[in-house]
């Protein structure tokens, strides 16, 4: 199966759009100190001001510049998103490949755990834990990763199982290669496209989760988060202020998620070739 992932994404209209959006967001996050005129934490008495030349999106209820907070919020979303994405894909790969290669009791145990976690809704566990401990960004990334690697593990294991039976793996085994070598040299490289798709969807889920949890007020309040901004904006929904406070924030959040969705969708034919256009049989 030799499908060029980069080509798939670039050739699809939505894929291109999504990629552009993501790159834009990453640029904004990286350039935050440059494009944000104010310190996002600096409070002032100029609260709930409408947009003006001074404050492009006005100010919030404690006088902070909304545009600056918006720009810095991108950092949080992307940091958590990609952090969880990387960690959970890593864990998923490790467990998935090891389960496929080692088999036996180990595989059974791992897969039961995977099945169990997939079934439980992530959010309630996070809420329960958050009731006792207030997670910092790092803890949040860790926690979300521990709860979301299972989906990828299942897919990776399935793929690794089929790869295991391929000729070149059998050949390597006949040379006396042990599991780690086989995993590293023969299986993981072929997993590339699947891992990427799993990664994209993990990031998407994590961005959503972080925003949602911030919206609930569970996450670290010292960090600028779009979810938290929306939560604050909610209490003032009877004022006009929602137009420049709530909407840009919500749209920014939605844009990142849409961008990830589009890219993920364009990359999907990698796993399910039958979804491709008329070119393929």
């Amino acid at each position, binding site marked *: 199966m030799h499908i060029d992932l980069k080509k798939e994404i670039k050739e699809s*209209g*939505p894929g291109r759009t999504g990629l552009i959006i993501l790159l834009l967001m990453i640029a904004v996050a990286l350039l935050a100190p440059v494009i944000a005129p104010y310190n996002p934490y600096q409070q002032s008495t100029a609260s709930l001001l409408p947009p003006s030349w001074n404050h492009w999106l006005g100010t919030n209820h404690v006088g902070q510049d909304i545009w600056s907070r918006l720009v810095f919020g991108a950092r949080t979303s992307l940091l958590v998103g990609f952090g969880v994405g990387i960690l959970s894909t890593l864990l998923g790969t490790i467990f998935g490949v090891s389960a496929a290669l080692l088999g036996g009791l180990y595989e059974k145990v791992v897969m*039961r*755990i995977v*099945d*169990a*976690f997939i*079934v*439980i*809704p992530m*959010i*309630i*566990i996070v*809420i*329960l*834990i*958050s*009731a*006792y401990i207030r997670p910092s960004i790092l803890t949040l990334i860790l926690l979300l990763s521990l709860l979301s690697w299972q989906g990828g593990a299942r897919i990776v294991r399935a793929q690794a199982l089929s790869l295991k039976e391929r000729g070149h793996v059998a050949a390597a085994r006949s040379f006396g290669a042990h599991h780690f070598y086989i995993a590293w040299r023969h299986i993981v490289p072929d997993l590339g496209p699947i891992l990427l798709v799993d990664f994209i969807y993990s990031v998407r889920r994590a961005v*959503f989760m972080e*925003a*949602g949890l911030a*919206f*609930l*007020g*569970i996450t670290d309040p010292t960090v600028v988060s779009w979810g938290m901004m*929306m939560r604050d*904006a*909610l209490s003032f*929904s*009877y004022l006009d202020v*929602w137009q420049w406070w*709530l*909407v840009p924030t*919500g749209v920014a*959040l*939605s*844009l*990142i*998620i*849409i*961008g990830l*969705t*589009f890219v993920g*969708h364009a990359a999907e034919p990698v796993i*399910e070739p*039958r*979804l491709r*256009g*008329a070119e393929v049989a």
Partner: protein
Amino acid sequence: MFSKRNLVAYTIAFLFILVLNFALPRMMPGDPLMAIYGDEALIAMTPELKAQLVERFALDKPLWQQFGAYFLTLFQGKLGYSYYYNAPVLSVILGRLPWTLLLVGTSLVFSTMLGIILGIESGWRRGSRTDRAMLAGLMSLNGFPDFFLGMLLLIAFGVTLGIFPLAGALTPYSGLSGLALVLDILRHLFLPVAALTLAHLANGYLLTRNTMITVLKEPYMLTAKAKGLSQRVLKYRHAGRNSMLPVVTQTGIWMGRVVTGALFVELVFAYPGVGYLTYEALLARDYPIIQGVFLLVAISVLVANFLIDLSYPKLDPRVSYAY
């Protein structure tokens, strides 16, 4: 699909939840009773009650005995007492549950049905402008978090246009009954359902559309066309029926999340369901409620999956074969 494998997985899930529920409060520094009941609760308790609870939960005994006591208490259906609401946890939760079920149930029905129909139509016309527009449109819609959608709807229709009420499940103290009551409930229900439906529409749509694309390539579609059947029959009776299966399974899985699925929307609309309850309990650090909800989630997830496993063979005759 109904198999030992699933049963084992569900049991592990359930046990995990139980253990988590058990372990967390006891891992906290300080008085475990406080961790279980929350500080506010503790203030309200008399020393005798405290001693009683310590004994009930075996808090002065070794850990394994505590777990045994915990398990026993659970088994007796005693989920504890909420000091914040001044009522047994079970009754508080059960009081809120119907609203959540109403909300999630309704929106699930709508979003699934609409998603399936749109998915069928889109898949049938794959590649056309209509299809591409629907695809882009629904994928974009999917990117909007449900709370954002809820807020937009609230502001647009509730605040600005004033068509729908802003909060709650019914107008308080209105003393309505019969048809008027039903209408009132529906008016309050409309925006939250709309928000949830729109947020989850794309899931069913995408899945149906994808399945539809593969189904249309199957030989039996040519056979059906050769039979001179109308487009409608081909689309729905033949292709659609076969494309529905994954979505229905998915819906079943989402049913398991029924308790938590509407959490954000309930929050936005102050809808008095279990989600909102969880949030309130979180703010108030009312641990018994939170743990009670957690358990409820565990049970509903298991039940939902079990039901799906049972009903799948009826939907796909090929599966009963594997029984």
